[in-house]
C-alpha cells in the first residue's frame, strides 16, 4: 500500500512537471508578446549560467557589485591572478549589461597589461581582454553593435596604435598567428595546381575551423569584406578592427532597433576622439573609416618572423574605395566633424601621393577638395600646399604619425628607384638625399629610447628595399595589391 502511494505520488509529480513544461513555452511567448521581460532571454547560454541568472534574480546585481569591489581591491594590490575569473563571473551575472563586458575587457587589456614590464605578459592580458569580448561577450550579445565596436577598438587602438610601448610586440604576435593560419596575408581560394604542403598554400579545413572557432572569423565574411572594400592584409590589427566594425554594422542593419535597446557604451577610453562616445552604429561606421584610412596609409605589410622584419607601407590602390566610403558616410550622417576629418584625410592623401610621384592623381584630389570645401583658401596653389605641408611636417616631426613619415620616406625612395631605372642618376640621388634628410629629421625629433621604440622608423635600407619592390610591382598591372 505504502509503495503504491509512493508510485502514485511520483507519477503525479511527473505529470505535473510535464504539464508545467507544456505551459511554460506559452507563458514565455505571452511575456515576450506583452513586453513583460526586463531583458531578453539569454541565447546560447550553458544550463548552469541560465539557471544562475534566473535563480538569483535581483541579487545578481548585488553579487556583481561585491565581485567588482574585490576586483578593484586586488588590482590596487597588484594581485591580478584572480581578475580574469572575477571578470568572468561579473559579466556572466550581468550578461546583457554591455558596459560591463566592455569595461572588464578594457580593464584587462589596458590597465592590467601595463602592470607587467615584459611584452609577453602584457600580450597575454591584451589577449584575455579580446577573448572576453570576442568569445563570451558577443556570444551572449550577438546583436549589439557596441560590443563589436569595443572589440574592434582593442585591435585598432591597443594593438595598432603607438600608445603602449609593447605595441610592436603585439603587432608581430598577431601577424605571426594569422600568418600561420592563413599561410600568407589573406584568405586565398585554392588555385588549381597549388601544392597543399607549400607554406603559401591556402588554409586547409582544420585551419579554417581554427579561424572560425579560435578567432571567431567567418571565412565567408572575410572574403566578402575583401571583395567589398579590399582586399586587406589579415595580419594587420586594423583589418581585424575593420572586420569587427563591419560585423557590428551588419548586425545593426539586420536587427533594426538593436542599437537603441543596448545600454550606454563604455566611456572608459582615454582618447577623446575614440568612437566610444557615439551610438553603436555610428561608432562602427567611424571605426570603419578610420581603419580604411589606416589601410591606405599602412596596409601593405612586409613581415618575416625569422628576421624580425615588420614594415608597413601605404596601399595606394585602396584610396578610391576609402574616398567612396567617406563620401557615403558623409551623405548618411551629414556631420561637420566628419567633413573635417575627411578634409584632413584628403590632405594626407595628397601628400602621400605626391611623395610617390603621383602628382596628377594628387592634383585631381586637391581640385576635388577645393570644390567640396568652399571654406578652403583658394589662393593657395597645389605646389604651395605641398611645400607648406612638407615644411610643417619637418618642423613638427616629433608629432608626425609614423605611417605618414614612412609613406613620405618610402615614396621619395620609390621615386629615386624610378629615376634610376630611367637612367636619371642626378634626380635619383636628389630623391635619395631628400628621403635620408626627412628620415634623419624625424628620428632626431625622437630623443628618448621610449619614443623611438614606439614611433621610430625602419632603417633606410629596409625602406629602400620596400621601394624597390614596389617599383618592380608597378611594372606589371594588379601587382600592387599583392602584399608579401
Amino acid at each position, binding site marked *: 500500500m505504502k509503495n503504491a502511494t509512493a508510485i502514485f505520488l511520483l507519477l503525479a509529480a511527473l505529470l505535473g512537471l510535464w504539464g508545467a513544461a507544456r505551459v511554460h513555452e506559452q507563458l514565455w511567448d505571452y511575456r515576450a508578446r506583452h513586453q513583460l521581460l526586463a531583458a531578453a532571454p539569454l541565447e546560447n547560454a550553458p544550463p548552469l549560467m541560465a539557471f544562475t541568472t534566473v535563480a538569483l534574480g535581483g541579487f545578481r546585481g548585488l553579487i556583481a557589485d561585491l565581485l567588482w569591489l574585490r576586483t578593484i581591491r586586488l588590482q590596487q594590490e*597588484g594581485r591580478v*591572478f584572480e581578475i580574469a575569473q572575477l571578470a568572468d563571473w561579473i559579466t556572466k551575472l550581468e550578461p546583457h549589461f554591455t558596459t560591463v563586458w566592455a569595461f572588464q575587457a578594457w580593464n584587462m587589456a589596458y590597465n592590467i597589461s601595463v602592470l607587467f614590464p615584459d611584452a609577453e605578459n602584457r600580450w597575454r592580458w591584451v589577449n584575455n581582454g579580446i577573448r572576453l569580448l570576442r568569445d563570451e561577450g558577443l556570444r551572449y550579445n550577438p546583436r549589439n553593435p557596441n560590443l563589436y565596436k569595443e572589440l574592434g577598438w582593442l585591435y585598432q587602438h591597443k594593438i595598432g596604435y603607438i600608445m603602449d610601448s609593447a605595441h610592436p610586440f603585439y603587432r608581430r604576435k598577431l601577424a605571426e598567428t594569422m600568418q600561420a593560419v592563413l599561410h600568407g596575408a589573406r584568405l586565398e581560394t585554392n588555385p588549381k595546381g597549388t601544392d597543399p604542403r607549400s607554406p603559401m598554400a591556402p588554409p586547409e579545413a582544420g585551419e579554417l575551423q581554427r579561424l572560425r572557432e579560435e578567432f571567431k572569423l567567418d571565412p565567408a565574411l572575410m572574403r566578402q569584406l575583401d571583395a567589398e572594400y579590399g582586399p586587406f592584409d589579415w595580419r594587420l590589427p586594423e583589418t581585424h578592427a575593420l572586420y569587427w566594425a563591419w560585423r557590428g554594422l551588419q548586425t545593426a542593419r539586420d536587427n533594426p532597433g538593436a542599437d537603441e535597446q543596448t545600454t550606454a557604451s563604455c566611456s572608459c577610453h582615454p582618447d577623446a576622439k575614440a568612437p566610444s562616445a557615439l551610438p553603436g552604429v555610428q561608432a562602427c561606421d567611424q571605426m570603419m573609416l578610420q581603419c580604411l584610412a589606416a589601410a591606405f596609409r599602412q596596409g601593405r605589410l612586409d613581415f618575416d618572423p625569422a628576421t624580425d622584419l615588420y614594415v608597413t607601407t601605404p596601399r595606394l590602390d585602396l584610396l578610391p574605395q576609402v574616398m567612396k566610403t567617406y563620401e557615403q558616410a558623409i551623405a548618411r550622417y551629414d556631420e561637420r566633424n566628419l567633413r573635417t576629418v575627411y578634409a584632413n584625410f584628403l590632405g594626407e592623401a595628397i601628400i602621400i601621393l605626391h611623395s610617390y610621384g603621383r602628382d596628377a592623381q594628387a592634383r585631381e584630389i586637391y581640385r576635388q577638395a577645393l570644390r567640396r570645401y568652399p571654406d578652403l583658401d583658394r589662393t593657395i596653389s597645389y605646389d604651395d600646399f605641398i611645400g607648406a605641408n612638407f615644411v610643417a611636417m619637418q618642423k613638427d616631426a616629433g608629432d608626425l604619425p609614423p605611417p605618414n613619415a614612412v609613406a613620405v620616406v618610402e615614396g621619395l625612395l620609390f621615386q629615386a628607384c624610378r629615376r634610376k631605372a630611367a637612367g636619371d642618376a642626378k634626380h635619383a640621388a636628389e630623391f635619395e638625399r631628400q628621403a635620408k634628410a626627412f628620415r634623419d629629421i624625424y628620428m632626431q625629433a625622437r630623443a628618448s629610447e621610449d619614443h623611438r621604440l614606439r614611433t621610430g622608423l625602419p632603417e633606410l635600407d629596409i625602406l629602400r628595399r620596400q621601394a624597390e619592390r614596389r617599383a618592380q610591382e608597378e611594372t606589371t598591372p594588379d601587382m600592387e595589391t599583392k602584399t608579401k
Partner: protein
Amino acid sequence: MLSKIIAISGLTLRTAMRSRVFALLIAMVVICIAGLPLMIKSDGTAAGQTQLFIHYAFGLTMTLLSIAAAWSAAGAISLEVAGRQMHVLVTKPVHAAEIWLGKWLGLMTINLIMLGLAGGLIYGLLRWTTRNAVLSADDQVSLREEILTAHSLIAPEQTVSKPAPPGGAGQTLSAVPPGETQSWTFRVPERTSPGNALFLQFQFATSRLERQMPVTGLWLINADDSTKPYRTLGSYTPHVGHALKLPPVAPGQLLTVTYKNVETAEPATVLFAANTGAQLLIRESGFESNFIRALLLVLARLAFFSALGLTVGALFSFPVAVFTAFAFLFITGLSGWIGTEALMAEVDLSPAWLAGLLNAATYGIIQLANFVTPPLARFEPLSFLPTGAFIPWALVGTAWGILAIGYGGTLAVLGFWMFSRREMGLAAI
C-alpha cells in the same frame, strides 16, 4: 570524567557517521574541490592557475566546513533535546560540561576527518595539475620557487639615503632622484639553506602623474665575500610588487643592495617606502609543512564555530540556534572589513546633528561587533598560502589560543551554564 566525555564524543561521531548529512557533506566537498580545476579561469599562466586553485579550493573548503560545523553543532544538542534522547543522558550522572565537551570533541573529530579529506584532495589535485608532464621545466622551477614554497620577508638592517627633513614624507618614504642611488643592507639569516634561491622584493611609486609608466633602474647587489657586484638593469612598473632573483649568497653574509635611478627618457624621482620598499625574500620551509599549518588555522576556526553552534544549541531550539549561529558566522566573516573599512565609514547628510547621531550610533554598533567577533582575518590562511608566504608556528599557536581556547572557552563556559539551567522536562503539546 574523561571516559564520559570520550563516550559522548564517540556517540556523537557515530550518529554523525550514520546521518545522510555527513555523507552529503563529503560528497559536496569532493565534488566541489574535484570540479574546481575544470571551472576556474585564471590569467593563463601556470602560476596564476595554481594560485587561483589554492585560493578557491581552500576558500571553498573553509566556507563549506564552517557552515557544516556551525550547522551540525547547533543541532547536536538542540535536536537531541527536541527528540528526547537528551533526557536519557541528563538523567544519568553526567555533568552538563561533560555533555558539552563530549559533543564538541565528537564534532571536532568530524571536522578533522573532513578537513583531512579536503586537504588531501586539494594537495593531490595540486600535485596532479602541476606534474612534470603538464608543465614546462621553467614553469616547474618558477612554481617551486615562488608559489609552492613558504617564504618570509626580511626587513633591511639599514637604509642608506639622504637624511630626510623631520616630520616630512621623508620619514616614511625614501626618494631617489634621477641619477642618484639608494642602498639597503640585509643580513642573510643563518637558517637560510645555501641551495635555496634568494629574492629581492621591491615596490615603488614615482613622481610622475602617469601612475604606471615604467622606470629604468639599475640594481647592484654586493655580498661580503664577493669581489664584483651583481648588476641587473631593468624597466620596472610602479605600484606593482617585483621579485628579483639574486645570485646565491652564503648564510650570515651582509648583503648590500643599491638601486640607481638611471631613467633618462622621462626622468622621474623614484619613491620607496622606508621600511617595506625593498625586502629580502627567503625560503623558510617547504610547501607541505606550510599547507599543514594552513589546515591547522582552518581547524582553529572550526573549533570556534563548533563551540558557537553548541552553545546556541544548548539555549535555543534547532531553527533558532541555526539562525543565530549563521548570523554570527556571517558577522564574523566580515570581521576583516569591520576592523578596517567600516570603522572609518561616515554618513554625510543634513542636518548635521542627524548625521552626527547616525555616525555615533553606527560607530558604536560597529565597535561592538568588532569587539565581540573573533579576529578571523588575522588568521586567514588565504592571505598566506596562495602567494607562498610562510605561516609561522607562532601564528598557528596564537590562532588556537585566541579562537579555540579564548573565544571557544568563553562559549564553552557559557554553554555549560546555560545547558545546566535548561529545563528539560517541559510538557510537550
